[in-house]
């Protein structure tokens, strides 16, 4: 399987060249991390080339780069999602998956026979088909960022179907998994450099605030630590 490393390097280069990224003081850790080729070399185990490019682009749009720091793709959300596909969750083993499968009122919840890995496979293929039809044969990952955002908004708010999958259900799956990747322990492949936690001011696995119960509105002074002891 070919790794779209050039695409990833382009994301990186774009960010490193952005003034706002460098001006944001807390992210030096990022400059270091991104220089390590190892951090970029993740080979997707589940997603194929086209899917992987789609996921990378979508993660970067859902959680965009800005003055606060890098985007969701650089934070490892795509790696997180790819690795989740081979867990009991990805295989739908945490969900009731017995039939009959019937469509119902949206408030009665998810009713598709697709576990997350099948949902992604079907919906990404259909999403790219939709994009090809509307953008002169280009796939989602080839679009400029504003066009990608417009497509994601159409999925989020529209009533269209992507294969058997309502586009809004696919979008919500993608949104949730991206944010899970950005904000879970780096053990799972995302939240690289603890940048997700640093953004929010969440101290990670410290989990002991005996002396900090009430600081009368002062910020908690310590940065995050991961379960493995990584700090930022």
């Amino acid at each position, binding site marked *: 399987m070919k790794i779209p490393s050039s695409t990833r390097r382009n994301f990186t280069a774009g960010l490193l060249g952005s003034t706002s990224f460098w001006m944001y003081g807390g992210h030096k850790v990022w400059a270091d991390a991104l220089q390590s080729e190892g951090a970029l070399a993740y080979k997707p185990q589940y997603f194929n080339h086209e899917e992987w490019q789609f996921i990378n682009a979508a993660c970067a749009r859902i959680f*965009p780069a800005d003055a606060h720091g890098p985007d969701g793709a650089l934070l490892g959300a795509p790696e997180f999602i790819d690795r989740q596909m081979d867990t009991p969750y990805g295989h739908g083993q945490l969900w009731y998956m017995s039939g009959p499968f019937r469509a119902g009122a949206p408030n009665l919840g998810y009713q598709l026979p697709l576990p997350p890995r099948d949902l992604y496979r079907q919906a990404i293929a259909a999403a790219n088909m939709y994009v090809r039809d509307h953008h002169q044969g280009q796939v989602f990952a080839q679009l400029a960022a504003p066009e990608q955002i417009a497509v*994601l908004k159409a999925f989020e708010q529209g009533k269209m179907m992507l294969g058997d999958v309502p586009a809004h259900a696919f979008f919500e799956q993608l*949104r949730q998994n991206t944010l899970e990747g950005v904000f879970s322990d780096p053990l799972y492949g995302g939240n690289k450099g603890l940048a997700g936690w640093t953004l929010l001011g969440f*101290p990670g696995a410290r989990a002991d*605030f005996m002396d900090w119960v009430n600081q009368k*509105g002062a910020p*908690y002074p310590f940065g995050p630590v991961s379960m493995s002891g990584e700090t930022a």
Partner: protein
Amino acid sequence: MCAKKVDAIVIGAGWAGSILAKELTEAGLSVVMLERGDERATAVEGDYPSSIDELRGAIRHRLFQNLSQSTVTIRNTLDQEALPYRRLAAFLPGEGVGGAGLHWSGVHFRVAPDDLALRTNVVARYGKNFIPEGMNLQDYGVTYEELEPFFDKAEKVFGTSGEPYTINGKIAGNGNRFAPDRSDAFPLPAMGEVYSASLFRSAASNVGYHPYALPAANASAQYTNPYGVQMGPCNFCGYCSGYDCYMYSKASPNVNILPALRQDPKFTLITKAHVLKVNLDADKKKATGVSYLDLRTRQQVELDADLVIISAFQFHNVHLMLLSGIGQPYDPKQNTGTVGRNFVYQTITTSRAWLSPKQYTNLFVGAGGAGVAIDDFNSMNFDHGPLGFVGGSPVWVNQAGVKPIAAAIGGPGGKAPTWGEGYKDAMVDTYRHSLTIDAHGSNMAYRDVYLDLDPTYNNAYGQPLLRMTFNWKDNDIRMNQYVVGKIEPIIKAMGATKYSLGMLKDGEVFDTRRYQTTHLGGGAVMGTDPKTSCINRYLQSWDVSNVFVIGASAFPQGMGYNPTGMVAALAYWAAYHIRTTYLKNPGPMVQA
């Protein structure tokens, strides 16, 4: 396997089951407790730091029921086709030893005494016509005075932290002035107050309400309970709800009862034992034992007993009664039968206030049971006459420790985007500088809201799933809207820079995709009339007298308070009467 015989079978290893098993072994009975989930021990599931892994914990539901084996179906109205609850969202039942008592938060209330006789009180104060058509308003058939010793006992077992108002009629502290009188102090002093809670306390007081420290089954100090087991002091790590407390500070059956119970040779715990049904004799008047599936060997096992305690999660209790043929299933059209009748929930909505950029609320600091509340709009503490609804809500800041994945998926709130441009800015502001206030309200019972067996969907063992027919009703929506309106002046008194009020909307339909609460109730309710209740005031089946059904399934209405304190008190109450009355002369303790 040939049938074995024990004195008592206890189904489910949560709070209710553990309390009954402890009490019955103390009474000298041989007890087998059957738990369909896995063994759980704080040394394993509470092992730091893997115990505080949010992805594995609250997000992938490590300690919750695995729906792949069994779930419920849900519909909103009688004419709808129910569909399976395929993914955990709106409510999160537990599974495994400790049950929901392992992953709960720890808010540990008693009861508002008026709630125990809500029908009588509403009729006395406002007349019979005040009760809306179709609302099944009922009394529990037991008084606060009768239950008080058992609330006291449960608090001592749980190591509950709190501040009293009155003890034996004398003012003893700055606690909840709407709370009923106590026979003794809380075993531990109230938990510390996070910044958000202290702001709420002063703001609520400034606008004329009566704030108090939430009673918490989170230990404010080291504690040894009457069973001799120890709790460590809570460090506000924020990993209560959804987690096994690594500090041994949050009360759970695993920490507070089972270490003592496991040493009793008369007690046997069997895990991976899925009870298929309670076996009855030919005329369905006596239980002979249970049939369970050993999930390790996939063998069906028959176990006989003189006494069967159904003490699983609320709706599992009702499911098991329906599968076993205990009592008559409720029929909403004919208005006959009682099993599944008065299925209730709670109305819980969250409002958010944003403070100045200089004020950090450090939302990750917290304890599941700690906070500051007001009861001015709970139960019958205010005049419902001009308002025209039954019920109420306590209101509180209960900063239980907000973790980043849940916060990020929930979004910044207000009108801010939930992804893309502007999302991160808003999320940072919300996570660092906001706080939330809940209206944690009651939900009444209605003729067309109930539980029965689904006609289409089965569990992994070929049995029909339980079907929920549930929707929000006008009475409860208006109650929620009224109480949320009372939050607004508190937020203003806090000096919030902006706020958003969360409330149920007119005509709102119950949405299974969004977490609301796991405080489900009713369906096997207690009472004084066998036509409208499944179990008598001692939680004994009216129909099968050697079956007792313990849990929030006994609540005739959904109360404003969190249910666990009431469940524990009812468990000790039932156990006391089994020990002092039933065992001496087995049979119905109340004549139908």
